[in-house]
């Protein structure tokens, strides 16, 4: 198992060398005198100036890197939120017209179902396919797993830090509702929650009951996005209500 500690080597932005700024303490006094380009100052001042320049470049690089990284983090969350807003609009349009509506003009995916967790006040639109591209916008329905309402196991995955953050609040006995484009609703109740190593996990394609399985990464607060553990919520059907 890989923990964050194992991957410690990747920590710390490479552009910022910690030892450099510790050592590069230029004589502060030199700094306080008005400087002339031609003045023959001591050797210390001559080395201090390039050092300062280097430090400023490092500062600029770190600033840029920091803005890009933090910006990207914000972008990931903004995208996840905004996409759901657009998907809800597309869903309403799809249900009104009966024609699958694209959530945004260049979208290569359409919502296939709506997942509601009443107790947690969560309302998500599920996309076709659980690939990295779809999961950025919403939970993904696994290709090859059953469609909601059909016999078998419906498997839906999403990111633990965006759409499926609410799974940690789900408890056994909680209700889940899945709505289909045509308006049918399927009610499920959470039967069990388990943490499993994804490398040993086999989700049955044809369990005895109609099943909804929600999968996300575990632990919820880990920094590392690549761990093998999965938080698996299994719910079984309670019959269809139209």
């Amino acid at each position, binding site marked *: 198992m890989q*923990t964050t500690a194992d991957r410690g080597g990747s920590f710390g932005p490479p552009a910022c060398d910690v030892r450099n700024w510790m050592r590069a303490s230029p004589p502060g006094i030199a700094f306080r005198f008005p400087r002339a380009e031609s003045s023959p100052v001591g050797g210390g001042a001559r080395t201090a100036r390039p050092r300062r320049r280097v430090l400023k470049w490092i500062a600029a690089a770190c600033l840029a890197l920091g803005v890009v990284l933090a910006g990207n983090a914000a972008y990931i969350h903004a995208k996840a939120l905004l996409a759901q807003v657009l998907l809800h609009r597309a869903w309403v349009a799809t249900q009104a017209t009966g024609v699958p509506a694209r959530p945004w003009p260049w979208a290569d995916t359409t919502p296939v179902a709506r997942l509601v967790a009443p107790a947690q006040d969560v309302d998500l639109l599920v996309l076709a396919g659980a690939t990295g591209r779809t999961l950025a916008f919403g939970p993904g329905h696994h290709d090859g*797993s059953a469609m909601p309402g059909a016999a078998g196991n419906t498997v839906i995955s999403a990111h633990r830090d965006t759409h499926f953050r609410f799974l940690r609040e789900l408890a056994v006995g909680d209700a889940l509702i899945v709505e289909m484009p045509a308006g049918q609703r399927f009610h499920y109740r959470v039967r069990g929650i388990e943490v499993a190593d994804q490398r040993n996990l086999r989700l*049955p394609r044809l369990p005895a009951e109609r099943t909804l399985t929600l999968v996300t990464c575990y632990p919820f607060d880990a920094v590392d996005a690549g761990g093998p553990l999965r938080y698996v919520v299994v719910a079984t059907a309670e019959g269809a209500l139209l």
Partner: protein
Amino acid sequence: MNADRNFSASNAHSLRGHVYRDVARLAAEAFAAGLVISLALALAIFIVSTQADAAELGAVPGQGTLMLKRAAGEAPVAAPLLFTDVDVAVSGMTARTTVTQRFANPTTEWTEGVYVFPLPEKAAVDHLDMRIGQRRIEGQIRERGEARAAYEQAKTEGRKATLVEQERPNVFTTSVAHIGPGEVVTVTIEYQETLRYDTGAFRLRFPMVVAPRYVPGSSAIDGEPGTGWGVNTDQVPDAERITPPVTHPDLGFINPVTINVALNPGFALSKIDSPYHRIDVSESVDHRYAITLANGPVPANRDFELVWTPDVAAAPGAAVFAEHKDGKTYAVAMIVPPAPIAGAGAQRSPREAVFIIDTSGSMEGTSIRQAKQSLQMALDRLQPGDRFNVIEFNSVTKALFGAPMPVDTSTLARARAFVTALRARGGTEMKPALEAALTDDVAPGFVRQVVFLTDGAVGNEGELVALIRARLSDRRLFTVGIGSAPNSFFLTKAAQYGRGTFTFIGDVREVAEKMGALFTKLESPVLTDIAISWPGKSEVWPREPGDLYAGEPIVVVAQTDALDGGVTITGRRGGVPWSATVPLSASAAEPGIGVLWARAKIEALTDALKGGESEMDVKKAVIEVALAHHLVSKYTSLVAIDVTPTAPPGTTSVQSALPTNLPEGASFEAIFGGAQTATPATLHLLLGLVALLFAVIAWSSANGRLKHFAQGH
């Protein structure tokens, strides 16, 4: 330099606000220091919390209260370790292979090991022995049910036992009862096979892993119990028996294999090649060669293939080998028809080509690249006047066109874009795709071909082959086996019933060569309406040899009363009657032909099931042949039982399914699911903040403020 100047200027300019600036500086530096400390703390908490979460997990797995089906044999019980040694003796056109499986139990529990593994689809398994230390117990052939009962009986009596069962002609199970703690039980299996001669070269194939199979079906049933991860369904009632657990590639390779081949081809060779593994070849006298893996054992995660090419002058035209056994005479004859008549292909009829490409999850990785490249090459070969269609399938089937379209620049461009955009994911629902290709419409004036690119990783082979047989009409279906561990049984059977031929592509580098050879074959069969007449009283298999394509030989096996006269093959070559006679008197003696004959007969009898023969009659006939020749079949198994009990009375061994590797180049996640379900947002935010902090520190340091701060201003 510029920045420096500006800076000193501003410094001089702001001497007046010295006090305010010092206060502000102090505040900023205090803030920076605080940030450093809090970030360091945050980082420490993150790391610690991750580890705490991981530790807390120790208690969670293993509860097993849910419907999640964990593959048996995985954590917490360690499975026995498996080491395989393969020794092949090639003589002429037959090979005898000894597979030694060593089951080592590193645990402190008594264990029953169950290992599901592949063998060549035409392997005639006729020998088993089990070795415990110095003792050696030979296996006996029994009806499947009886053998299973004898094995279970031995198990309850605390005696060691080994059972070898056939699940598919190319999938077998070895079960070993009562492997003691720290003990090693060695199981040796032997089989005989006829080598494949094609396009001027002999090929020996040794498969090493049963690729994860997709199990179609609409409802779960009890079916036949097994130890795999699959769920038995109405369409695959023995899914549990053909789906061995798979180790994630991140956890390292398991099941090391050594391979040694003693090659006695009987003629001079121009080339020996192993396309997927590095080998060492040493030649001894008389064109005999010893071949071994160059870098020691390899993980059992892809087919081994050995290809040897005769010198042009020594290339065989015909060969006969014979064996006298139990008062009977068996002979195998191979005849290579002459090359197609030059110019016969000049009058090319227009084609209707339908390409089916498997885009299921098992194709993800190197396989889909091979398949797409092969398909693009096939599109290149289409000519004006032809028509074509492309069908992709995974959980759903999607056709490029509603019906085959004429070849022109626009349809070809659409096809290329369609193929380029294909991605592999989801299930392997093959039936709707075959139904879409094998429609019941007619196309007078067109030569109709279906080219089927797949790894064949499905569990319902029989159903699919029956579908091909029923709906083929005047088409010919060609299979292209893709990937490192294709399902050779399905691919060869589909081609047989599709009246076409098959090719295997295991590497992107092979695409051009293998597809080129397939295109030559696609032009037309070189020999049709083949009939064989064997002199004297004889029983010849196969009864109805299929059409031959360029470079392929006819191979027939007979039980006969005498080796007089000659075997006569008749057929139509380029529309003209053709015949050839091979004298039997020239036959060379070779052991193992009787077994090959029995195996060919069993295959023909089993094929008759698809022709509507009753299962009862077929079963009876197969059991009779199999028992007489000591052969493992669908209805007969080999079982070896120790005479004395070695397990303490009352021992119940832990049943443990031996895991396999994932086939090389495949994607575990694409087959078993498990997309990455976390974003790097938290990590990026954290790193971003650290970078910003360093920016502040570097900037302050450049201005000497850190020193200032340290001096206590």
